């Protein structure tokens, strides 16, 4: 199967939505849901069929000139992530925004297409192009609908930081082209070992600097808490659960392809930023009084956690990171969706006012507790399992300080999630207003809870461990 379908299907849906709105307004829900279904199906099919590796160049051009697309088990994993995360966000968005805001769905599908594009891109310039579409769509998603100044400001901040990051990525790609005359990743792999040290260093610095901003790792994370907390709940869920994972994929892909043997210092620095992000994220989340902002800072910490695995530059580290990517997606999307429901019920964001939810919405409160416990790393949930693998990866390489940060993060995150749960479970001072039924969000959260539980038992299932350890493509990492 041609990987282009993973990009084409959501892109076509984005194109058809305005037409559908103009000519068949009543059929818009059908169009959006069927578009979402086929996009997820397409990406899922590309992921399954491309697990062993598919490589294609569009239009029959030579690899140096054509648009190269490539899928292997690494990109297949992330494609699977998007084909799970985007439909769930779509369902929740439909309930949140209704069907008047057709523009939202256009941006949404553009974001989907560009994320899939990043995952299947086989040359770095197309990777950059998809990153630009991805970023513009993300800026717009954050401030949609542009009714809150906070969201607009957050979007603007994200735009400024994102542009700066994109600039560095473009600079890095330009240097690569200047030094090698190539943009195709597979071909570039052979050129890199021959590059002079300073050139290689500048390229690595630019790419790392750009991608750190895009993924929201410390010390370039200042846009993330604003953007993820100001957006509407389904968008926050999508941003935190899926979108921040695309730059992490790019870091893993480019890092292992280009810098593994010629520039081994690249990975310890990644580890350093991961540890920093982990520490800053958790310490800041602990001090928040607004629930969505706390979850956003927790995302900064979780990005750091994923970077730890990447920084280990080992097959085990990459496996642990990919596992944690899924764990974080299932938990954080659920947490943001539940937080969104509670915020709507209470019309307040502060923890002090978020009381009485155990009686008011028991399902959502229990789901929140379970997902938070998983993300904090309480055994034997999925977060614990992935952190155990990360710990093994860190200790295998002798990185004890990052391992201690990882464990300290468990303690701190338990503390702040307990604070939230304590508020939810305490009796409400004022009765809660009538609640709006949220069947689609409830379904999405239930799915995420089940996914989280499935991830927890995955290593225990027959063949589960083998599947986990086969996630990074063979030969990609030692």
């Amino acid at each position, binding site marked *: 199967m041609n990987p282009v379908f993973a990009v084409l299907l959501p892109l076509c849906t984005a194109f058809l939505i305005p037409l559908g709105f103009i000519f068949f307004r009543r059929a818009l829900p059908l169009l959006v849901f069927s578009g979402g279904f086929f996009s997820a199906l397409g990406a899922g099919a590309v992921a399954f069929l491309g697990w062993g590796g598919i490589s294609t160049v569009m239009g029959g051009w030579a690899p140096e000139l054509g648009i190269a697309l490539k899928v292997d088990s690494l990109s297949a994993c992330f494609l699977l992530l998007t084909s799970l995360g985007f439909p769930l966000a779509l369902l929740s968005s439909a309930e949140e925004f209704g069907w008047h805001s057709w523009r939202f769905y256009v941006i949404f599908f553009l974001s989907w297409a560009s994320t899939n594009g990043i995952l299947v891109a086989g040359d770095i310039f197309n990777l950059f192009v998809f990153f630009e579409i991805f970023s513009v769509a993300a800026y717009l998603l954050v401030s949609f609908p542009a009714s809150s100044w906070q969201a607009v400001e957050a979007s603007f901040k994200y735009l*400024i930081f994102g542009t*700066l990051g994109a600039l560095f990525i473009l600079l890095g790609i330009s240097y690569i082209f200047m030094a090698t005359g190539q943009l195709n990743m597979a071909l570039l792999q052979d050129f890199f070992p021959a590059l002079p040290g300073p050139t290689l260093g500048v390229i690595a610095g630019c790419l790392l*600097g750009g991608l750190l901003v895009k993924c929201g790792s410390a010390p370039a994370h200042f846009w993330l808490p604003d953007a993820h907390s100001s957006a509407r709940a389904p968008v926050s869920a999508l941003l935190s659960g899926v979108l921040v994972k695309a730059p992490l994929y790019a870091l893993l892909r480019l890092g292992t392809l280009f810098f593994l043997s010629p520039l081994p210092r690249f990975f310890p620095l990644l580890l350093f930023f991961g540890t920093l992000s982990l520490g800053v994220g958790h310490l800041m989340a602990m*001090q928040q009084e607004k629930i969505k902002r706390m979850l956003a800072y927790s995302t900064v910490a979780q990005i750091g956690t994923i970077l730890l695995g990447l920084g280990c530059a080992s097959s085990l580290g990459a496996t642990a990171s990919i596992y944690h990517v899924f764990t974080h997606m299932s938990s954080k999307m659920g947490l943001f969706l539940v937080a969104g429901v509670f915020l709507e019920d209470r019309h307040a964001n502060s923890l002090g006012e978020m009381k009485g939810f155990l009686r008011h919405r028991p399902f959502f409160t229990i789901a929140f507790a379970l997902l938070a416990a998983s993300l904090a790393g309480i*055994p034997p949930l999925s977060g614990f399992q992935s952190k155990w*693998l990360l*710990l093994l990866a860190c200790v*295998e390489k002798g990185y004890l300080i990052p391992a201690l940060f990882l464990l300290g993060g*468990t303690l701190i995150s338990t503390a702040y999630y307990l604070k939230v749960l304590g508020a939810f479970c305490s009796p409400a001072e004022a009765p809660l207003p009538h609640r709006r039924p949220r069947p689609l969000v409830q379904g999405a959260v239930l799915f995420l809870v089940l996914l989280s539980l499935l991830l927890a038992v995955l290593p225990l299932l027959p063949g589960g461990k083998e599947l986990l350890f086969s996630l990074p493509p063979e030969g990609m990492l030692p």
Partner: protein
Amino acid sequence: MTSPDLLSRIMIGLACYLTFVALVYGKSSFSDFRKPLLLLLFCASACMASLVSTWFGFVIWVELSSLCLAALVAFSDTGTAKIYFYSQLAGGALLLLGAAAISTPGIPAPLGPVSGTWYPLFLLALGFKAAFPGLHFWLPPTHSRASSEVSLLLSGYAVKMGIYGLLRLVDKPSPGLLWIGIAMALYGVFQALMQHDTKRLLACHTMSQLGFMVTALATGTPEGRYAALFYLVAHALFKGLLFLVAGSLEKLYGTRDLNRLGNIAIKEPLLCAFFLLGAAAIAGFPGTAGYAGKTLVKSSLTFHTAALWSLQLAGLGTVLYLSKFGGYAFFEGLRKDSEEIPKKKNSLPLSSLGAMGLVACPLLLLGGTRKSLSFFFGNLPLPDFWSPYSLGTALLPVAAGLALFSFFPKLFFPRQRRFPDVEDLLPSGRKTLLPPLEALRKFHLGKIRMYFFLYFFVVFFALALFSL
């Protein structure tokens, strides 16, 4: 998971028995299904922790059992439950790090001895669970503020999971651990003597008793290991009984303060009898499980004279604190005869008395007869329990303690002010951490240009690092 060995079987049996006693004792006070359910979940996880054969599995089940206990403590005091949970989580996290260090991907390390670099880390991690000096900050508040049936499990079983871990970890002589055990035994009993709250007094003394087990197992000999194991069971029973007695006093009179209790022996003779039995056992009076346990521990320390005498000193302290408890609560007390202690409840429920009976019976059954101990030791050579030497070493601290208390009772007067302990450092530790956290928070509320400068600095730092 492999078939359970003797150590696992005893731990499972103890977990089930103590949970049963806790369920019986708390029967009258359970308002809904949550507490019994949590008690059963605790029992299940505790049994699983004793059954697993890897350190990884051990961490998982111990953490789950701590979670259940923290939830149970939260019914009485949320703040204490948090301290308990975080401390156990910290210990679990360190143990997990140790487990990761000695495991290979896909093959978790077996639950067994660890040597070399990672041994101190395992000791530190298990030190949180077994309340090593300095790491015991969670123990006195948790054990004293939980409801009595939960205190029974905390003192009778939860801390023993740390000892169980140590029994799996240590298989050869460990002088460092031996001194830690001695420090625990002495510090715990000293703290117990300084308390006026009955449950806190018992909680502090738990640390001292854990010191006996740690000292015995640190000898690394089979005798020492078996002595620690037997003492573990005996302590669970006598300390459990004393916690139930203290809890019953609180139920009846609404106080745990020795300053407000007194002359209760006449009003509650059965409760007093249970106290005396528990006290006799804990002091090592011949014929009780405590006597057998203490004799075994002392016989394992034949070649460690300093340790032996230190434990004798701790034994003397034990008798003194028990005299203080008994003297001021059940006997003469500080109240004037005319003053009537207000009663909160007329009588104890039958289930509570039954639970105390359930713990009291094995205390006598395990009282030093070779037949009863053969279950634990099989064919292992046992010391002569009824030799003059054994009786003399057991009775010496009892006699000395009683004499000291009789002659100088004012020395052990229960004072109102609480004696400082490591837990008092927690608020100041929190205060020390606040300014850097505040600074970090303020930094995140700064101007965007500041972040740009930081970002550019980092990118140039990366460029310089890569290019050099």
